[in-house]
């Protein structure tokens, strides 16, 4: 367990089997990154003919365990206690490290959310495992069962492939918003193993005095995102962005400089330090296309960019470009969408 000692390689790596994923929850509800982990974990488990284990802790987790099974989880390993209702580093890391020692998984994936990162490195040290942070591509070598953990590096310009050959489990944290949420499985069969646990009081000293929920705009689930940047020239420009987003049934995003200017709240920020989105349509309005923004939207299915600068970097990442004044182009788009809809005679769409 804890103590200042080096990481000892696994004496028999071949004994380590199956794929663990950590299901992050809030108020006993599965968060979207939990579903993303099930998706990528299942793919890897199937490739090497192993089972997907979902690790679930909380105050009341029966329903979430069933939900995990419905998404394709083979075994839910759960720990339930009122003391586990809210994530806390020590009890969560101790219990999960015990699960790892009992079940000896070959691979363990954890979302690279804030609580996920808080947890992953503790488990890695506790289990003397190797962990690769913030992966955007994850695969497994079929014959060796070696995890191929890929993470962007050097300002997101390069992808590093990182291996953990001798230590087990092979751990990785996965960037939220990158891996798709899987489809539900028809007639899903999975085993649910939940144990009631009373953690030692010594590891329950941290008190959560208060949780102030933010009114977060979840951009990651949106099918259409319309984002504004410095090209808007003024805070009011976001009214026009909102109008287009409403018309398309989408949500409003923003580049970091626009957020830093105080034109719109940080909840709307798309990019490396904001949210990572992959909608069906991404509209970039008055955004030049700095790498920090590109990282958050480049996986969108279709990208339309509007910018007066014909050499704007964002155009390299776009399917369609309008090189013109956004204050002409956006109203034209709104008008044409309204026209199209009225020809088809349907009511305005609600944000999805």
């Amino acid at each position, binding site marked *: 367990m804890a103590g200042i000692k080096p990481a000892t390689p696994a004496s028999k790596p071949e004994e380590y089997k199956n794929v663990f994923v950590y299901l992050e929850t809030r108020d006993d509800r599965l968060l979207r990154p939990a579903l993303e982990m099930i998706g990528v974990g299942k793919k890897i488990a199937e490739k090497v003919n192993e089972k997907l284990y979902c690790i679930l802790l909380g105050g009341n987790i029966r329903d979430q365990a069933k939900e995990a099974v419905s998404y394709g989880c083979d075994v839910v390993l759960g720990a339930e206690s009122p003391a586990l209702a809210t994530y806390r580093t020590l009890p969560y890391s101790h219990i999960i490290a015990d699960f790892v020692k009992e079940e000896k998984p070959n691979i363990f994936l954890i979302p690279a959310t804030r609580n996920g*990162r808080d947890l992953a*490195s503790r488990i890695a040290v506790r289990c003397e495992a190797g962990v690769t942070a913030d992966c955007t591509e994850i695969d497994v070598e079929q014959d060796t069962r070696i995890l191929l953990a890929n993470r962007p590096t050097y300002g997101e*310009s390069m*992808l590093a492939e990182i291996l953990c050959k001798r230590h087990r489990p092979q751990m990785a944290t996965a960037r939220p918003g990158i891996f798709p949420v899987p489809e539900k499985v028809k007639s899903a069969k999975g085993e649910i193993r939940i144990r009631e646990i009373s953690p030692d009081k010594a590891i329950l000293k941290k008190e959560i005095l208060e949780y102030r929920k933010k009114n977060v705009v979840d951009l990651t689930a949106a099918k259409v995102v319309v984002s504004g940047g410095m090209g808007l020239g003024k805070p009011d420009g976001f009214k026009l962005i909102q109008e287009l987003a409403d018309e398309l049934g989408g949500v409003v995003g923003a580049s970091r400089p626009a957020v830093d200017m105080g034109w719109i709240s940080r909840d709307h920020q798309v990019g490396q330090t904001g949210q990572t989105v992959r909608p069906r349509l991404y509209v970039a309005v008055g955004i030049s296309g700095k790498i920090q923004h590109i990282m958050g939207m480049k996986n969108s299915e279709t990208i339309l960019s509007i910018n007066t600068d014909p050499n704007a970097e964002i155009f390299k990442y776009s399917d369609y470009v309008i090189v013109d004044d956004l204050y002409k182009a956006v109203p034209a788009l709104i008008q044409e969408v309204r026209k199209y809809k009225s020809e088809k005679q*349907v009511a305005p769409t609600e944000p999805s």
Partner: protein
Amino acid sequence: MVLEIIVMVKQVPDSQEVVIDPVTMNLNRSLTRNVTNRADENALEAALRLKDSVGANVTVVSMGPPQAETTMIECLARGADRAILASDRFFGGADTYPTGLTLAATISKIGKFDIIIAGEETSDSSTGHVGPGVAEFLDIDQVTYTSKVEYKDGYVIAERELEDGTEVVKVPTPVLVTVLLNSNVPRRQTLRRKIDAIRKGFEVWDHDRIGLQPEWVGVRGSPTIVRRMRPIKERERAAKKIELSAVGDLVKELYEKNVLKLEVDS
């Protein structure tokens, strides 16, 4: 009795001017300027504010090559009381495991501490894993991603920023805290303090002084290895130019290709 605070800092390549060697695909360190990791400056400032408000000894700890001396002097010039650089050729090439191990061993060698403060992550590797790793090695609790840190009667009270809210936590010391980038405005170095800092100097500890075996640390002590690096290839996109007069056609195309849909979907 004053608080003993340890601040963990790292010198990193300036993220504004990273140069990649096109042959080796590695960082060209000779062309890249080094700076103190910005979130670590916020960590030091958080420590100095505790020193101002409740009284503390602030010791800065770093692992890095000899050129990290500029960072050590800078931290002293901002107001740290002591600076220790864990530096040894054996430490090179470490992943997060031996990095945490080396820092934890250095800290435990220093002796008693109440609070360890670090930046949320470093800008060069962006893992955020070293802080929690150190806390695990030292078997203490942690509070990560904080925007506000206070100390009262043996407890740290801090605000943690999560994706969807702010958690207010109270935890007894000893504890490790990581602070968010830009969570405060770091004080400036004064010329007077800088002269004092250079005069005072900092300590350099090698593996032997810290009590570490060479095979525990650096590349030899790392469970992970980088197998290869490749440039991130993006999907080719057409960047089809649309004139204002053709926006109607574009809208029609987007609906017909199901990029836009008339029905509400989720």
